[in-house]
């Protein structure tokens, strides 16, 4: 059974039709990189996967559970799907440690000491063992994004969604974030990554989705998609970005 199944997903913002009947299945431990021009709907697609955007039509199954049908349980379902944002969205009024421990303590009833122990482990994992008591505003972009990844992982999600996680970083900080994501992929996390980092997509992605015109225009393994794209639009896009 796929971990994520998307059936005929439509999303419109008023008159603007962004997603026009998107179908896909994503398996456990698969790393899917979503590429495409801006405005092609890739972020909207990702945000539909945890209902941050309400689909106009269609259904999304997460571990077999239809989200649209179970909208009332969305808060519980979202606990199983972690998300990392382009602009980090760390909570600026809390220390790094509190950012990470808040959700496990409040939503899972984890004790403070347990949550902090877990947070410290996660900070070690993302390479920031000594930033516990810093406020987010004192961190660099790359450090913020790594804390944001740790915050999402603290809920033990089954799936991680990444919405252009390196797009607002200075070039020298992109690597440190991508490395954390690579480690995560190696550990077998199911990941959907909207990205402009073609190098990362090639190296880490199990499957590349090229989005255009509100659908998955072409998809395949990195070798297939990058080396021998079948459709003209795909070739044109890759010609521009590679």
């Amino acid at each position, binding site marked *: 059974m796929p971990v994520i199944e998307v059936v005929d997903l439509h999303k419109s913002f008023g008159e603007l039709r962004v997603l026009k009947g998107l179908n896909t299945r994503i398996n456990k431990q698969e790393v899917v990189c979503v590429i495409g021009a801006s405005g092609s709907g890739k972020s909207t697609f990702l945000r539909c996967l945890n209902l*941050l955007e309400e689909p106009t039509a269609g259904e999304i199954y997460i571990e077999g559970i239809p989200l649209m049908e179970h909208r009332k349980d969305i808060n*519980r379902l979202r606990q199983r799907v972690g*998300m990392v944002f382009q602009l980090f969205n760390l*909570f*600026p*009024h809390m220390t790094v440690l509190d950012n990470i421990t*808040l959700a496990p303590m*409040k939503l899972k009833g984890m004790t403070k000491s347990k949550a902090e122990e877990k947070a410290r482990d996660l900070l070690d994992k993302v390479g920031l063992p000594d930033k516990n008591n810093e406020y987010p505003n004192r961190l660099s972009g790359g450090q913020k994004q790594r804390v944001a990844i740790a915050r999402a992982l603290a809920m033990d999600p089954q799936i991680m969604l990444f919405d252009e996680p390196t797009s607002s970083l200075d070039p020298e900080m992109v690597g440190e974030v991508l490395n954390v994501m690579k480690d995560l992929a190696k550990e077998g996390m199911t990941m959907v990554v909207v990205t402009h980092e073609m190098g990362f997509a090639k190296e880490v992605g199990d499957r590349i989705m090229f989005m255009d015109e509100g659908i998955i225009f072409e998809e395949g393994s990195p070798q297939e998609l990058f080396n021998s794209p079948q459709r003209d639009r795909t070739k044109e896009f890759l010609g521009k970005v590679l």
Partner: protein
Amino acid sequence: MESIIKTLSDAIYFNLIREQRYVLFISGLGISLQLTLYSALLGTLIGLFLALAKLGRVKWLEGLVTAYVDIIRGTPAVVQLVLIYYAILGSSSLPKIAVASIAFGLNSGAYVCELIRAGIMAVDKGQMEAARSLGFSYARSMIYIIIPQAIKNILPALGNEFIVLLKETAIAGYIALDDLTRAGDIVRGRTFDAYTPFILVAIIYLLITSILTRLMGGLERRLHASD
């Protein structure tokens, strides 16, 4: 030189000492401060409720709040005070200060509503999304994430609103409440000296507002410790 000192000491004697007129100023100040405190508390409460009603997703409630805010902000406070006193609450047995507190509280609530709403809206919308993506409900996201950040935006403006309120209560004399400004007016009526009592009143207001401004500055600095 001697005549100036003589004029000044005479003015102070007639306006403050004679017939213990200083008592009028002191009790007037007491009334003004009480009135400000009660209306500020009531106004904050009303404002909070109105802001939450306006931010909620119930359309007719939002319209009602908008109408209320428009009416209050579009009419003079003194007219509202007199109307509420005579037409609405004049027939009840409530003490005048309570009536005035309600009038000023209703007035201030409209302004506070907009302050709180603006403060909440100013929090980056990514904050709500991050909280929701972790699995927090809308209400809990507000409580843990949005409101603590909004308070930083709101408090300076709210402090300012209280200072405005203190000065605004100077119209309480319209319903025969003996506040600080009216104390000045009473003394003027006795001494036929307009300058001394009102300069005194002005100095007292200025002193209090300066103290409040300082207090707010200190509070603000502490709130921004995490920046």
